[in-house]
């Protein structure tokens, strides 16, 4: 890997300042993604600013029943937190379905959100990639795209976002707290990750020097059940082919509210707004679930080798909603 300088920031302001001074500096969290990229030559920063020990490692209750998750809370700790397990089972399940125990112990909340999208060509510096080297072309087109997008892709990039946690957070309407060179701001998670368009090298809306400090989880009504279902090529330690995060509120057999996000299908966690529209006020039946899934997937555009993701996403969404309408509340 390319030699780099290592700096450790003592507080948020210093971290942001350190980065702002250096165009070629990046933040280092748990390192589970960035260190891989350093080794592979995918990331070639001059300076790493270590933010993993900033005092952002707490999970706090917000007024009204929500939670604020600090940026450096480890994935394992977040998944095991009693309040998270009680109020947002979908989030705990999503975290536990990701990576491995060792990686979850190291990975941070902010770092998980900021994982780069995955593609074998992005990881291989001997191939062209618009994300790694803007304008160089996309090797995935016409290549190995089993894991690639069926929604929202562009001719520039068909990669998918690998996070499970972020899919659950998308369904939960989480809000990302950011401190940057120009001060603090809050970014709704739906606006946080980008679709590739013609600028696939930007995975998120963050600018240089922007630091994620926390993620806020709004409260869910008591009657909501939530669940995360991940379908993958092996039973553990694999990225999602398709995943579904769903929170469902059924009253008297009718869908009062529903939030759905899909993973493994797009450059960002995919909020299934069309399916939600279809479902709100509809009877909580198999037919409704299927219609909703089909409404969402009508726009799907599979690429070579991943057409199966369309029926897979449909079936998985229907099965997840069905499970949420049976059994005991969680």
């Amino acid at each position, binding site marked *: 890997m390319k030699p780099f300088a290592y700096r450790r920031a003592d507080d948020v302001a210093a971290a942001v300042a350190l980065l702002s001074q250096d165009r070629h500096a990046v933040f280092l969290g748990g390192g589970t993604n960035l260190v891989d990229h350093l080794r592979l030559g995918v990331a070639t920063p001059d300076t790493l600013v270590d933010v993993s020990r900033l005092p952002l490692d707490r999970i706090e209750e917000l007024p009204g029943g929500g939670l604020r998750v600090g940026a450096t809370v480890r994935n394992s700790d977040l998944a095991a937190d009693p309040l998270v397990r009680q109020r947002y089972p979908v989030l705990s399940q999503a975290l536990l379905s990701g990576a491995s125990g060792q990686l979850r112990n190291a990975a941070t909340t902010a770092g998980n959100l900021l994982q780069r999208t995955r593609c074998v060509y992005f990881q291989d510096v001997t191939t062209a990639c618009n994300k790694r080297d803007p304008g160089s072309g996309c090797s995935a087109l016409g290549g190995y795209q089993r894991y690639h997008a069926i929604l929202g892709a562009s001719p520039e990039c068909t990669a998918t976002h690998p996070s499970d946690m972020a899919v659950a957070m998308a369904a939960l309407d989480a809000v990302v707290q950011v401190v940057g060179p120009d001060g603090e701001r809050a970014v709704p998670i739906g606006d946080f990750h980008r679709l590739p368009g013609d600028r696939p090298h930007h995975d998120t809306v963050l600018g240089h020097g922007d630091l994620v400090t926390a993620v806020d989880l709004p409260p869910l009504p008591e009657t909501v059940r939530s669940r995360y279902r991940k379908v993958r090529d*092996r039973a553990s330690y694999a990225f999602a082919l398709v995943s579904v995060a769903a929170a469902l509120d059924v009253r008297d057999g009718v869908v009062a509210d529903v939030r759905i996000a899909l993973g493994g299908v797009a450059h960002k966690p995919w909020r299934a707004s069309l399916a939600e529209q279809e479902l709100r006020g509809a009877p909580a039946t198999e037919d409704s679930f299927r219609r909703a899934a089909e409404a969402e997937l009508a726009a799907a555009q599979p690429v070579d080798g991943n057409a199966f993701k369309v029926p897979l996403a449909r079936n998985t969404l229907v099965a997840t909603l069905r499970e949420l309408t049976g059994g005991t509340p969680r």
Partner: protein
Amino acid sequence: MTATQGRVRPRAIGTPLDRLDGRAKVTGSARYAYEQPVGEPVYLHAVQATVARGRITGIDTEAAAAVPGVLAVLTHRNAPRLADTRDAELAVLQSDAVAFRGQFVGGVVATTSEAARYAASLVRTTYDTQPHDSVLRPDRDDLYAPESVNGGFATDTEQGDVEAALASAAVTVDQTYTTAMNHNNPMEPHTTVAVWNDGELTLYESTQGVHMVRSQVAPLFGLQPDEVHVVSPFVGGGFGSKGTPHAPVVLAAMAARLVPGRAVRFALTRPQMFFVAGYRTPTVQHIRLGADRGGRLTAISVDAVSQTSRIKEFAEQTAVAARMMYAAPHRRTTHRLARLDVPVPSWMRAPGECPGMFAAEVAMDELAEACGLDPVELRIRNEPATDPETGRPFSSRNLVACLREGARRIGWERREQAPRSRREAGHLVGLGVAASVYPVFWMPGSSATVRAGAGGRYTVSIGAADLGTGTWTALAQIAADALEVPVERVELRIGDTAFPPASVAGGSSGITAWGSAVVHAARRLRETYGNAPPDGAEATGETGDNPATERFAMYAFGAQFAEVRVDEETGEVRVPRLVGVFAAGCVINPKTARSQLVGGMTMGLSMALHEESHVDGRLGQVANHDLAEYHIAANADVGDIDVSWIDEDDPHVNPMGSKGIGEIGIVGTAAAVANAAHNATGVRVRDLPITLDKLLGDPGAGNGPAVRRR
């Protein structure tokens, strides 16, 4: 009776002795190649070609050489000239030609591994690129017949009149099956520590055979064999990829020449394992079976296609198992190769039998279905009295006993003959069976020395290898019984060319070949010196010949059963249970044997469900070249694996009565899983791996059994 004949009386043999090297491994004191203490080592990182075919027109090493800590940059321009370049895979950096993407085109030696790796990334190579051809397709018009296939077997065989037999058969199966390209990924990647001293080369090498490395490497550098010293006491897995030297050891030895007296450490990165360490070729197998209504085979025809590299031939012996497995009067097998611009394929656990028995045993399942027969019964009906190919009797053949015991263990009577008839909690559940086979090779060429010490102790020396499989323990048990002393009185020395020559740990022949030499040496010592040899008394024995190999067909057999559960909505496949019952002669150490068989079946499960190297034909390389993208079975994929063996007494194979068990565990697993998946879902998957997309959707839509009845 000569010293190689007559059975050893088992005392330690057959007992589940704990690994003698277990403590050293668990505590980290067992040193693997990369960890050998060699003073102040320097580090090598390879530079690889980024085109699949062409010539190097320029190679700019200036930036690399300027990196602090860099000692040397190796290219084809300054690399030592090799004395022997006939093996093009080992003729590293001898010309400007590039024969496959990822081929070594250089290397950087530096004082740290980080500096070497960074500098390697700065080497700029330009190419005159030529069109390449890297994808195996069976409909190519340039397939050719090799002179022979791996193991020295005949390329084609034909007995009787297959076409006529098929034309008149009451029931036929005519299908094409494919197995994916697979890459061996032992836990320990290929590693070498190389050092030159006074014109002699010492290699600490992760290898399946120190003497194999010596004999292959010495002529490259114009050395006599005894000028190359190879040390390899512990190996973190090989699976065939370390059976014969590949390019890495040559690059390391060359790099070490540039820094005489200093040891060069070299380990492949995981992605590099997908380019320069061998792999299992993909196969395309056209199988035709003819049978009477009772399922008795009349004809077996297998046409196997695989790939080889343009620079070196490797011909997977895919169809050889079909020559001896079942009785059928009319049989033909062919092997054809496509010569491509790809890395050199090589051995991967049970080359030949593993992919061949996938196709053959799925075809047998299709035949059972076509005949309305239980697949276990079908195999029993086709059990041959003698080896169908040679007419020789089997030294022992207990496939039927394995099938019956396996059926009992898995609860075969609960299997529904009609597919898609068992549903449990949203899952389709099925059972499947397949047979396993692996030859008992008599591998000559090993010697062992037994030396008597004080206090009734003995030192046994042989250049054998322990790949993590248990040689340290099992060979000591054999030596103890041959000497008729307790195991504690035997000190084993292996893994070094300083010891007598040993054949490679390949073809599941290690313990049988080395054990035969150890037994011979022990008996010679006893013949010469009696039961109380003087301190320092020594005798050497050899594997020698076994005349029985001329009279008998020698194979280990097995039966594997799988329970498969398929999610009805997502197609996700899980295998909660595998049962393997084997007939492999005398089992030297039940504990290490069980581990090997469980490991083989796990690897077979992995092949069935996961393993697939996706070649990007445009680039001419495996696209998913790391373990995040190339899936092997994770713990959560592996359910209960029930391994057992039947008592089998084979007086012909060797003095221990043992057959190899390193490979048979992977043979048939994938077929058992595929057959169980069919029983569960009604979908016949003929192309490995069995991924969920192949089971999604409408069963039978184009995937149903293409069988014909009259």
